[in-house]
């Protein structure tokens, strides 16, 4: 799980590589390194983020170079293990994102052949393997070396005095950014958007030779023609526009993300939504996702049950991969923000091999998942930089609602009511965001605790999980979510004056049971923060703090409660002075299984 960048062109490579690495830091940021050819290959590496050691990086001149920002998988975080890695004679340098599975065997045989290894990484076998076949033709040598590698990779290779870079991909994302007299290679488009929006997406098993003027892509040793795309995103979307953190900016972008996601799909007159039609009437559904996407799937489960009366199953992608689930006429919906989540990609491949129809919900056009799944629904949330998913989660939820309404066999009237309610979501979410200050004022009731519990019932149980996850991710407070009904089956033992409880108490059929749970908790003197309907006049007497949520149909309450809990987690993290956009040990998109 890392970000890679390569540059070849007419400008100095150093500032371009460093700038692009900063853009890629959401993929990993525990160490970084760059290599630039200025007659010999000059390498600089350091631990931490680029900005911290920028001043120490020598001003190397050179118009060709590669860079890497690392999220450690093999080997501890230190300068030696940071990329780029080189061969024995410092003639070849490689940056790599992915995992080489057979590196142990390769390393042993290369050691036996007299190669000299310095790091503990899996990556280092690559430059040594290339060295073995390099006699002046880098393209041939890389191709030869790749034949021996098993596992996943996106690599960029440079060699001393060689006027081009070689890049290759299998299982990890890779793009080429094109411009006049300069070309870029990167893990994703964010890294190059400052310079160009003309992009070519590289597919698995393709090898590219990239020089200042030319791009050659080969597959099975044959040259192929790749189509160029123009990216509609602007660099502006990667900037913070006056906010202290990307996360807060992205929380504020949610009304727009929702509006963009349903744009053109819903109508106040015609109660039809044509998203992806259902394959057959007796099919059932399996929802897959990881982390936040899994929580979206949980809401989806409730929704498909309630609206479509279908058999719905749900698994985290990784668990699905390690179990043998019986699938028969099952439609498998995989949810992944980045479209690159390794577990979800593998799960969808597996489902497809088993003959299931696959649907992907993703936010990134042209991402790997769009080639794995047969049908794709795009959440149009715009680029998300903050590691903690916010607007993409809401857009994922909305896409599940759109799917459910298009699948269901509800009467026209109910369907139209749901559609009208959906259209008002941006305004309602905006109302929650407008109460930001009130929500922030409750942060202190949680920020000094070591443990926090989240409880809810029904459709909002998934939101309790999501609220707990957000709090964990960015404020490092231990947070657990329980279905309120499960409290007395164990967790109640942990509840006391030092464990605040966040309770989601909407005005629906869970209300009276939620009140019972709240009273049980209150009897143990735990402070309670409730998320309650603004019309609720009684909740105040049972709880210590209340965040009031605008009135909305229960089915849509997850949207509003999510936004309130995102803001709560954000302001708790602010109180605790945490690094919000870059939580320790986490990365935005997890491309390792």
């Amino acid at each position: 799980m890392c970000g890679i960048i390569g540059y070849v062109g007419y400008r100095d490579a150093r500032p371009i590589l460093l700038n692009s690495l900063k853009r890629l830091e959401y993929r990993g940021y525990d160490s970084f390194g760059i290599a630039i050819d200025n007659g010999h290959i000059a390498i600089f590496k350091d631990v931490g983020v680029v900005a911290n050691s920028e001043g120490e990086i020598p001003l190397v001149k050179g118009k060709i170079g590669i860079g890497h920002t690392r999220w450690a998988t093999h080997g501890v975080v230190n300068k030696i293990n940071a990329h780029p890695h080189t061969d024995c004679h410092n003639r070849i340098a490689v940056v790599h994102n992915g995992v080489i599975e057979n590196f142990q065997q390769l390393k042993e045989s290369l050691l036996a052949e007299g190669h000299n290894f310095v790091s503990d990484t899996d990556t280092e076998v690559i430059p040594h393997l290339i060295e073995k076949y390099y006699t002046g033709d880098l393209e041939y040598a890389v191709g030869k070396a790749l034949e021996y590698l098993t596992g996943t990779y996106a690599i960029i290779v440079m060699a001393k005095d060689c006027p081009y870079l070689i890049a290759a991909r299998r299982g990890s994302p890779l793009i080429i950014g094109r411009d006049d007299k300069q070309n870029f290679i990167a893990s994703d488009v964010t890294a190059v958007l400052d310079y160009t929006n003309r992009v070519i997406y590289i597919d698995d098993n393709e090898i590219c030779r990239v020089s200042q003027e030319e791009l050659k892509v080969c597959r099975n040793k044959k040259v192929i023609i790749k189509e160029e795309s123009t990216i509609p995103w602007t660099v502006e979307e990667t900037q913070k526009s006056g906010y202290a953190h990307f996360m807060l900016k992205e929380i504020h972008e949610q009304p727009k993300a929702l509006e963009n996601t349903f744009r053109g799909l819903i109508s106040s007159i015609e109660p039809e939504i044509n998203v992806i039609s259902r394959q057959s009437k007796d099919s059932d559904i399996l929802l897959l996702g990881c982390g936040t996407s899994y929580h979206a799937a949980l809401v989806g489960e409730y929704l498909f049950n309630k609206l479509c009366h279908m058999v719905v199953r749900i698994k985290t992608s990784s668990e699905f991969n390690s179990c043998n689930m019986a699938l028969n006429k099952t439609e498998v919906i995989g949810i992944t923000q980045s479209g690159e989540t390794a577990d979800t990609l593998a799960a969808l491949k597996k489902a497809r091999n088993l003959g299931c129809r696959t649907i992907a919900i993703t936010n990134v056009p042209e991402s790997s998942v769009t080639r794995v799944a047969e049908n794709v629904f795009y959440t149009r949330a715009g680029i998300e930089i903050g590691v903690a998913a916010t607007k993409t989660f809401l857009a994922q939820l909305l896409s599940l609602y759109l799917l459910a309404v298009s699948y269901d066999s509800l009467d026209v009237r109910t369907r139209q009511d749901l559609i009208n309610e959906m259209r008002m979501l941006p305004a309602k979410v905006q109302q929650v965001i407008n109460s930001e200050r009130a929500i922030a004022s409750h942060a202190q009731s949680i920020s000094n605790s070591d443990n926090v519990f989240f409880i809810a019932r029904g459709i909002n149980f998934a939101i309790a999980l999501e609220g707990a996850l957000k709090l964990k991710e960015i404020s490092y407070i231990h947070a657990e979510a329980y279905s309120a009904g499960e409290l007395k089956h164990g967790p109640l033992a942990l509840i006391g004056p030092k464990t605040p409880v966040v309770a989601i108490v909407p005005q629906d059929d869970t209300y009276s049971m939620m009140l019972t749970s709240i009273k049980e908790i209150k009897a143990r003197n735990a402070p309670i923060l409730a998320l309650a309907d603004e019309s609720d006049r009684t909740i105040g007497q049972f709880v210590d703090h209340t965040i009031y949520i605008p009135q909305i149909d229960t089915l849509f309450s997850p949207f509003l409660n999510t936004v309130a809990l995102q803001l709560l987690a954000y302001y708790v993290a602010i109180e605790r002075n945490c690094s919000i956009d870059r939580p320790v040990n986490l990365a935005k998109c997890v491309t390792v299984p």
Partner: protein
Amino acid sequence: MRKNSNNIGQAIILAAGEGQRLSPLTASCPKVMLPLGGKPILQHVIEALVQNGIRRLLIVVGYHREQIQDYFGSGNDFGAEIRYVIQERQLGTAHALKQAQDLAEERFIILSGDNIVSSEAIRDLLDMDELAVLGKKVIDKNMLGRGLVQIKEGKVHQITEDILPSTEGLINTGIYVMDREIFNYIGTELDLPRVITGMIEQGKIVSCRETTNRWFDVIHHPDLLSLNNIVLQDLTASLGGVIETCNAIKGKVSIGKGTTIRANCYIIGPVSIGDNCEIGPDVCILPSTSIGNNTVIAPFTILKNSLIFNNVNIGYNSTVEDSIISSGTIIRGHFTAYSGRTTRYIEGLGQKEIEMGAVIGNDCMIEDGINIRPGVSVGNCSSIKAVKIINENIPDGSIVI
């Protein structure tokens, strides 16, 4: 695009204020973000600056600053580079300017983000080589809430705050060309006119330039409608989205992307309709109406000279005339807000006769069959149950049973 002659590249835009006199519209939306002609007021200001080659913008934000930041972002979409400076408490214009001290360049232009100003008016001031203030002749007595620029021997003598209608001089537009030295004169002073008067008293020379080009302040509700009228005259016609057959669209009409105009609508420009809206079938939209994004206008409804913000839903068989409806409000069918003459108390001017329809705040829920009398405003987040005549103002958060 032209470069201004004296090379000013930076503007400091004061946009931190609330705009209380426009309540309830400003309860969750700062005054600078109120939409006129399909764009926030501040966007009109920014576009006028960019047309003069002024692209580096420092916006002093405060009240609901997130809405300004969400909309303008880094400024890329507007051809500008925007940095935001925060004024935590809105103490006054000089205090606001002081917040921008660290990022201010050697010379800059200062403007309020909540006035409508044309690029020509800005150009008039940029032609001046020295420190200067832009003045405007009094044409409308409603503008008399502002200070006057008093001139002696061709230079500014003082800028007064409160004035009598008989006083000679030009209205202070609040647009100035200044240099960094102004920061030395602010001290603990909170208002800019006093700071500038102070500078003059200590020997600095400030000139005044009169403009005959467009500049307006937005003070009261009727101003919003009349200014919407004015800015809509500059509208560029463009028909985006899907327009079904049998529609009559005449005059300057702008329709945003993703919007659907269903059959049998009659739209007479100038009319601006945002993105992602659904209009009709059988809707009549008459001149000088602006409609925001994601808004639904149901069949058999007629809109005339009105301002409809984002995310509004207006039900079937409704009439909306000379009225303002704020974001997120849902109105069911058979709604009437008609125009008429009425007297209203206006701060600074006393009882005044105005002619307008209703003003409805954000996120209201108005059920079927509601009739609102001219000049009445409905507070934010209010709920009105079915079949009623609303005769008087309703405070925020009310439930009318």
